[in-house]
């Protein structure tokens, strides 16, 4: 299989769907000539023209609202928030309108739209350009939240997202854009709501998504040398969450750690842990269920502080070892 970057995989998915379905169009800021702040839509303007690659003024609320309206009358908009942080300007349209229209209207409206949004820190962009806000989004019935960790998953999940009849927040990560992996040229879909076991292991279940998957896998490699076998479960979709796969894994390993970059307090690790702890699986767990997450701070600018603010490979390795060695 050909190797591609996460960014290329996303562009390939967008291009493929635009070729396949003329209702699909891109909508956002600087997505044309500029190709988007990170280059995801680079070249698509030349290929599809201004009507399919629709550049907007800097008006995030109206971007989300307009995408919602277009979706309600038969289009399949793929909107872009240049940075995930900016979805905060469109929360009204996303949460009150897009997510609820179908329910409020008694099932008579459909809102098939995707909002792509790169989250995460590590680029020195500081507090307003580095947030991981997916935990806010999973609390909203009516939307789905996708959070891919590999180029392969990114393409397959984006295809599924664009074809899904619901509003979808597709959360990318800036630091993953350049990562490489095998990605088929043709089209393939990955069902939303199905987790993927990225590594099998008997000693502990680590649930990690997005950027934390490669970091956890790297830590798992090193731990394997010590004979600690880590099972890495990547939910891929945070809402709906594949609770069964997570529970099955925990019943096997008896230990659970959830790792995410998002700030710890109120983060989605709580949802994963509660979903396990409220079920009979609870009785299979030996010791405390742990979370390793972002510090409760806005992301600082200074490079060292920024690194210290979110879980790094070594932190994950240390935490896993501590759990397996029953230090809690």
């Amino acid at each position, binding site marked *: 299989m050909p190797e591609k970057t996460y960014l290329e995989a996303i562009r390939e998915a967008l291009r493929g769907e635009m070729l396949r379905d003329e209702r699909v169009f891109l909508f956002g800021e600087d997505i044309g000539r500029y190709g988007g702040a990170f280059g995801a839509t680079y070249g698509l303007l030349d290929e599809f023209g201004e009507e399919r690659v629709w550049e907007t003024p800097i008006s995030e609320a*109206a971007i989300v609202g307009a995408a919602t*309206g277009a979706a309600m009358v038969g*289009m399949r908009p793929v909107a872009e928030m240049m940075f995930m942080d900016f979805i905060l300007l469109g929360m*009204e349209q996303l949460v009150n309108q897009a997510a609820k229209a179908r329910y409020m209207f008694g*099932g*008579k409206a*459909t809102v098939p739209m995707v909002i792509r949004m790169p989250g995460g820190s590590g680029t020195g962009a500081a507090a307003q350009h580095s947030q991981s806000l997916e935990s806010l989004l999973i609390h909203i019935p009516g939307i789905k939240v996708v959070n891919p960790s590999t180029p392969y998953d990114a393409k397959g999940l984006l295809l599924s997202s664009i074809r899904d009849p619901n509003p979808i927040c597709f959360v990318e990560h800036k630091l993953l854009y350049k990562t490489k992996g095998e990605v088929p040229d043709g089209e393939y879909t990955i069902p939303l709501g199905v987790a993927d076991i990225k590594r099998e292991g008997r000693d502990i279940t680590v649930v990690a998504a997005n950027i934390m998957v490669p970091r956890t896998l790297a830590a798992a490699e090193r731990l394997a040398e010590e004979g600690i076998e880590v099972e890495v479960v990547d939910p891929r979709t945070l809402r709906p969450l594949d609770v069964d796969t997570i529970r099955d894994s925990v019943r096997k390993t008896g230990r659970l750690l959830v790792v995410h970059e998002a700030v710890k307090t109120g983060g989605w690790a709580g949802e994963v842990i509660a979903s396990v702890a409220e079920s009979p699986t609870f009785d299979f767990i030996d010791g405390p269920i742990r979370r390793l997450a972002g510090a409760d701070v806005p992301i600082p600018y200074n490079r060292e502080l920024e690194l210290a603010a979110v879980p790094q490979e070594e932190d994950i390795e240390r935490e896993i070892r501590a759990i397996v060695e029953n230090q809690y």
Partner: protein
Amino acid sequence: MTSKKSKTKTGQKKNKNELAEKLNLSQETLIEMFRQMCQIRRFERMADQLYAAGKVHGTMHLSAGQEAVAVGAGLAMRPDDYLLNHHRGHGHFVAKGADINRMMAEFLGKDTGYCRGRGGSMHIADVEANNLGANGIVGGGISLAVGVGIALKMQKRDQIVLGIFGDGAANEGIFHESMNMVALWDLPVVYLCENNQYGMSMPVSRATSKQPIAGRAEAYGMLGYFVDGNDVLQVYETMKKAVDHARAGKGPVLVEAATYRYFGHSKSDRNLYRTKKEIDGWREKDPIGRFEGYLIEAGILTEKEADEIDQSQQELIDAAVKFAEEAPEPKIESLTEFVYA
């Protein structure tokens, strides 16, 4: 409260039906317009009574006094045009041809209501009829209309979309972002700002730094009209111009219609911010009374015929209430349906 209709003279001299003829409105159409206005007024009064009688759970925003805006605008639209309504939207629904039985059933939260009892007054919609719903969020429909306009343009269809909101909504940021977009892209969108002088208790003069609100269209290089919202023929004339303009691909239009609501803002309103004098002053300009006066003067209706038409609407309203009261409640087990497609 709204029963005694004042019959202001429209003060036309020569041809008493001049304006209507100029607008190519047949006598049948004029009478139908009058009938609709009476129906809306009676609908609102009934809604108020049902609430008072404890039969309606939740709040509703009544449009009695604003019937001319709804009927004038509704008539200017094609049945297949799209509508994005706001919270004070009953009149607009009736004017778009909604079935008042299903409307009433929705207010009573019944399973045969337009939204199967999930939406209620603030969210009633009829998607099949291109009626994309009222909105509980002030200004909530404004940016949705931008998207419908984009879709219509991309799909090369000749419908237009009408986005309705109030004077208060015009101060939400989304108004600005949306006006700029529709003007920038020449979308087939007509915005109708129903200025009933207040946003809840806030007089428009204390909320809006400069009036008329239609004047803001200028800032976006877009066409703007200000019209007397209590004169149904003027509303129709202006809205027809606006709708034709948008349908012809000449770009969006912002229309402001000055009118007044008689009831309180909503159930929680103690009406402390308006004087009886002010309310009475507007009653003198009552849209139904004025139009009735016009029709009588023009010899299209006698006062007796007019009253009969008005009375006869009550039967429809009563039938709607009966339909709604007898309608089934949604099943509790269906609570989690309709969240996802």
